Each structure stands twice: as structure tokens, then as C-alpha cells.
């Protein structure tokens, strides 16, 4: 929720200064997009906190969190016009980007393996309900 409210508020507050460097979309569009991101973050945050490692909703929360972050960064970086990186005309990081993708895939592979390990553990030792 903080994400969904604070960022558009700051974007509105500093709009005149930001517009000097970056072309921003209309204020209403920024609010809509960030409220959507805020709600999605709240949902995946809830799934990660309400369930424990080894339960399917926890894994969905983790994977969803990654997808929301990816979408958020993609949206934020769409703001960046060429002028932001001074006189730079082109920047290519194809090889570096492929390495970063491979590293992210490995991170998620680790997450899934960890999930499978906890799931097996849960099968043998199911969580006890808290009587209080």
C-alpha cells in the first residue's frame, strides 16, 4: 500500500523538477498504475506472510512477488528517455542481460528446490494448530 500511494504522491510533488529531465505520463495514469501495483504487492505480501514455506500459496506469493517487481521495474524504466543518460546515444548490454536473466532463473530454481524440501518436511511433520 505504501508503494501504491507514496510513489505517485512523490511523483506529483516533484513533477516540475522531474519533468526537466524525464517525460512523465499524466498524473492520473501514474496513480492508476501504482495503485494496481500496490494492491498486487499487498496480495503477494499477504500470501508470503499468511503461509509458510512448503505450502503452495507461499510459493505463489514468492513467484508473484518476483513478477510484480519485474513489472514495476519495467514500468519505471519506460519513463527513462534517452536524455536521462546525458549524451549517451545507445547502450547495449545483451550479454550482461542474459547473465542477469540466468542468475534470476537460478535464484528461482533455488526457491523452488527450497520449497520442495520444506514441503517434504511438512508432509512428515504437519504444522500444529495454535490453540490460542
Amino acid at each position, binding site marked *: 500500500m505504501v508503494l501504491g500511494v507514496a510513489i505517485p504522491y512523490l511523483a506529483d510533488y516533484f513533477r516540475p523538477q522531474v519533468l526537466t529531465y524525464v517525460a512523465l505520463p499524466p498524473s492520473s495514469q501514474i496513480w492508476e498504475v501504482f495503485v494496481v501495483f500496490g494492491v498486487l504487492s499487498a496480495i503477494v505480501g499477504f500470501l508470503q506472510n499468511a503461509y509458510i514455506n512448503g505450502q503452495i500459496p507461499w510459493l505463489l506469493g514468492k513467484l508473484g512477488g518476483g513478477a510484480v517487481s519485474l513489472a514495476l521495474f519495467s514500468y519505471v524504466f519506460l519513463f527513462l528517455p534517452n536524455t536521462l543518460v546525458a549524451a549517451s546515444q545507445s547502450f547495449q548490454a545483451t*550479454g550482461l542481460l542474459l547473465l542477469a536473466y540466468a542468475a534470476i532463473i537460478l535464484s528461482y530454481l533455488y526457491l523452488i528446490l527450497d520449497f520442495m524440501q520444506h514441503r517434504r518436511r511438512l508432509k512428515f511433520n504437519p504444522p500444529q494448530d495454535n490453540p490460542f
Partner: protein
Amino acid sequence: MEGLRTAKRLTRAADLLLWLFIGLVMAGPLLGFLTPELGPQYVAGFGLDLQSMQPQIQQAFSSTSALSGTHTVVVGVYNRWFFPASASLSLELIVKNSTVYQTETATSDLAPFQTGDLRVVIAVPPSVASQLQGAQVTVGGQLHLESPGFWAVTVNFPQR
């Protein structure tokens, strides 16, 4: 269960190594940009000694008569990092927002921990030199830095 634990360890180790490698690749140009501020003895990474270019250009363009000869602008390139790198530079003379003369592109390919020079030859033809008389000349150019296979950046200056 033991197999899963081993797979987890291997995945984590491979992931850490990959991020470390990405960090090393990215650190090259960053250090090359930042460390010259600390002094020549601390220079690391991949970069150019662009500060040496300004006085040489000023000397070449100190008077219109000086323009008609051939001048070589030498820019030091250093690659004090683990990956091969390449730099190329061309200069251009701009009058009233249009390019009237452009040099050949000078290129320097450097192996890891190797230094070199970019030698840009300015040989203005007499016909162009006459155009430059009394005009306000801006020196621009194109700089290309590359770490083959990983990243490449092209900078045009001044921005038009």
C-alpha cells in the same frame, strides 16, 4: 532428501558465482570512470584519459592557420581489469550545427591489464579550413566503448 539438499547447494553456489561475475563485468567501466578522481596511481578498470584531449584540441585549433596542418590527438586508454575491452573515437568539426569535417575513427583493442592509445589524426583540407575562418567552431565526436560480448556504449558529443 539428501539429493535435494545437494541440488540446493549447487544452485545457490552457481547463482552466487554468476552474480559475482556480473559484478566483476560491471565494475570494470565503473572503476574506470571513478578511480581517475583518486589520482593516476589508483586508476583501475576500463576507461580513457579524456582530460588529456582538451589541451591537445585547444592547441590544434588555437588559430585558423594552425588548422591547415595535420594534428594527432593522442588519448590514453587503460584496461586494468579482467576482461578484454575496446575503445574507438572520431572527432568532428561543427559549424552552425552541421558537421564540416570528420576524422577517421581511431580504435584500440586492449587485452586484460593492458594500456594503449587512441590516435585521432586531424587533417583538415584547405577547402574546409577556409570555411572555418571566422566561424564559431564546435568540436564534437563519437566515442564507443565496448567489452565484447557483455556491453557496449556509444556516446555522441555534443548532444544535438
